[in-house]
């Protein structure tokens, strides 16, 4: 019984949140949920569709044509040209998009999926759910969490089906450079594997000069790249479960079969709401970005006050910081040295602050923990003050 699921774990983020929910007065900086409510323009679009009687029925499996047309327009503004009729699928969030893509891609003899370590904790489980085997390739912390191409090349073989990464990266908040992404594309071309680029945090970049590049902008890579985006973070819509993916029609027609089997179509009311977000949500998105930027500075100030306990690199994107746990921090909490799970559990138990242990993001995430500054300024201040007070 359950032979397929026995090696699949509940995401550590959810485990921590579950534990935290049982302890009174916990402040959680664990889950990557924006503290904001969904913007009014988005709600208005949903109400309008609801009152029009347009949301009770399934949409086309691809998604509402008018929403996909809007997506195509938005993509074109970012230099990505995809046909809304055949090359875009609206999905139930990014995780469904990733799952559908991996199920379509993974084959019995080509079943390995490369993940960067550290990277988003659910990737490894999704690869397993899709019948694949996650293979970690380390990022180099001392080089700003850059890709270690020597290591990556060693991990690629004839069984490699795909590489899946988040850009900007969760949990490190770093952006992969155009040069590095093109190297990945070159490698994928030589070794014939797919590139899954999850760009859910691309709207939260705090250093304008860093720029942002997507491999989906290169027409020659259309057949190799599957780009994933979700409206969850950008428009504070995590509960609406809405996102999309796009690629060449050759790939999309295969992924569509899986998407159809999994969900039939993305929630229709969320599709209308998302259309409102893309059409009219820009001001709210800018407001969120400004707010996150100020929270980033706030959290960095707190971390600067705790230099004896934590070391960190200031993130460029996303809304996460991924500090390194120094020996003094383990000692202060009475946690096992080198065990970020124990550190996170002790922090929860003794300080009543929930964070995600670094090991959840892959082997090289050990000795770190992830803090979300998507949460409110009040929560950030409270949590960080508690940590500082306890440690000192």
């Amino acid at each position, binding site marked *: 019984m359950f032979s397929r699921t026995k090696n699949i774990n509940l995401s550590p983020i959810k485990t921590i949140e579950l534990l935290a929910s049982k302890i009174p007065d916990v402040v959680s900086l664990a889950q990557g949920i924006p503290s904001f409510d969904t913007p*009014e*323009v988005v709600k*208005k679009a949903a109400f309008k569709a609801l009152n*029009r*009687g*347009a949301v009770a029925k399934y949409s086309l499996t691809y998604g*509402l*044509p*008018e929403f996909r*047309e*809007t997506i*195509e*327009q938005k993509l*074109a503004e970012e230099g990505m*040209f*995809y*046909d*809304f*009729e*055949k*090359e875009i699928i609206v999905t139930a969030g990014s995780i469904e998009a990733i799952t559908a893509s991996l199920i379509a891609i993974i084959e019995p003899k080509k079943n390995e999926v490369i993940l960067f370590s550290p990277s988003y904790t659910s990737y490894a489980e999704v690869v397993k759910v899709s019948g694949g085997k996650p293979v970690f390739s380390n990022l180099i912390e001392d080089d700003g969490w850059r890709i270690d191409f020597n290591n990556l090349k060693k991990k690629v073989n004839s069984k490699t089906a795909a590489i899946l990464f988040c850009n900007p990266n969760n949990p490190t908040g770093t952006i992969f450079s155009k040069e590095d992404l093109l190297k990945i594309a070159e490698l994928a071309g030589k070794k014939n594997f797919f590139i899954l680029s999850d760009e859910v945090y691309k709207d939260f970049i705090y250093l304008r000069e860093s720029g942002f590049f997507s491999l989906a902008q290169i*027409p*020659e890579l*259309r057949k190799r790249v599957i780009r994933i985006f979700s409206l969850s973070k950008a428009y504070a819509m995590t509960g609406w479960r809405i996102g999309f993916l796009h690629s060449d*029609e050759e790939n999309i027609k295969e992924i569509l079969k899986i998407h159809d089997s999994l969900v039939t179509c993305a929630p229709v009311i969320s599709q209308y709401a998302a259309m409102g977000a893309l*059409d*009219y949500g820009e001001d709210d998105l800018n407001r969120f970005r400004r707010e996150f930027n100020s929270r980033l500075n706030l959290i960095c100030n707190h971390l600067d006050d705790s230099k004896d306990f934590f070391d960190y690199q200031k993130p460029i994107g996303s809304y996460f910081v991924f500090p390194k746990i120094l020996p003094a921090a383990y000692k202060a909490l009475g946690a096992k040295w080198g065990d970020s799970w124990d550190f996170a559990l002790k922090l929860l138990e003794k300080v009543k602050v929930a964070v995600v242990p670094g090991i959840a993001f892959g082997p090289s995430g050990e000795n770190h923990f992830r803090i979300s500054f998507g949460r409110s300024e009040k929560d950030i201040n409270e949590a960080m003050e508690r940590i500082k007070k306890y440690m000192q």
Partner: protein
Amino acid sequence: MNNLFKITIRFFLKWFAKIYLWRVRPHVIIVAGTTNRHWIKEEIIKTLKEKGLIARSNEKNFNAEIGLPLSILGLPSGEGDFWSWLKIILQAIGMITNYKLPITNYLVLEMAIDRPEDMDYLLNIVRPNIAVLTTITMIYRENFEDLSEIALEYRKLVRTLPKDGLLLLNFDDQRIKNLAKFASCRTLTYGLSDGADYRAENIKKITTGQRFEIKGNSIKINRFGNHHIYAKITAYAIRSEKI
């Protein structure tokens, strides 16, 4: 926005847009139909600008009862905010009472209908010189009995075209093609099928986009999907015809 507020805004915008059109007298090109209005509008605007004409089009997808007059006036939406709307209304008053209004040769407007009365309302604001009709599909059909009822709305648009106007119909959509008989102006068709006045042929998908021919001229675009080819054909027709 509550109903009374919405009715008031609608009323003001309608009259300001009418006054603007009366004063500026641009050539109006309406792009209507249930799909592909955006890309056709974009291509036509590009073509007109390449010809050195001063042309303007809808902001975002402002194409219905509130959005269309805003597009005519070139103003943003106040969304649900009273003060933003007040600012916009004052801006509109300032604009239409301005002694010297900026010249606009062409207004290229997307027009969208949600329910049967919409077309009458929109045509009461603006009368086109040229109309491009795209498709009649199931999108937005919730408030219509069937596709034929939607076609009846577009028939109203066709009938408003002046004798010296131009009607461009999608040859590949039977319901759209059938509207030709209600026009009193020059009528031309565009499409991918044999028989269209402006037709794209020898379509090939290439790595970087699509390649095709219109009237023997080879055209390459960096976009994918037939809707971009339709957009290119209509723009080609606008460029080629005397308008």
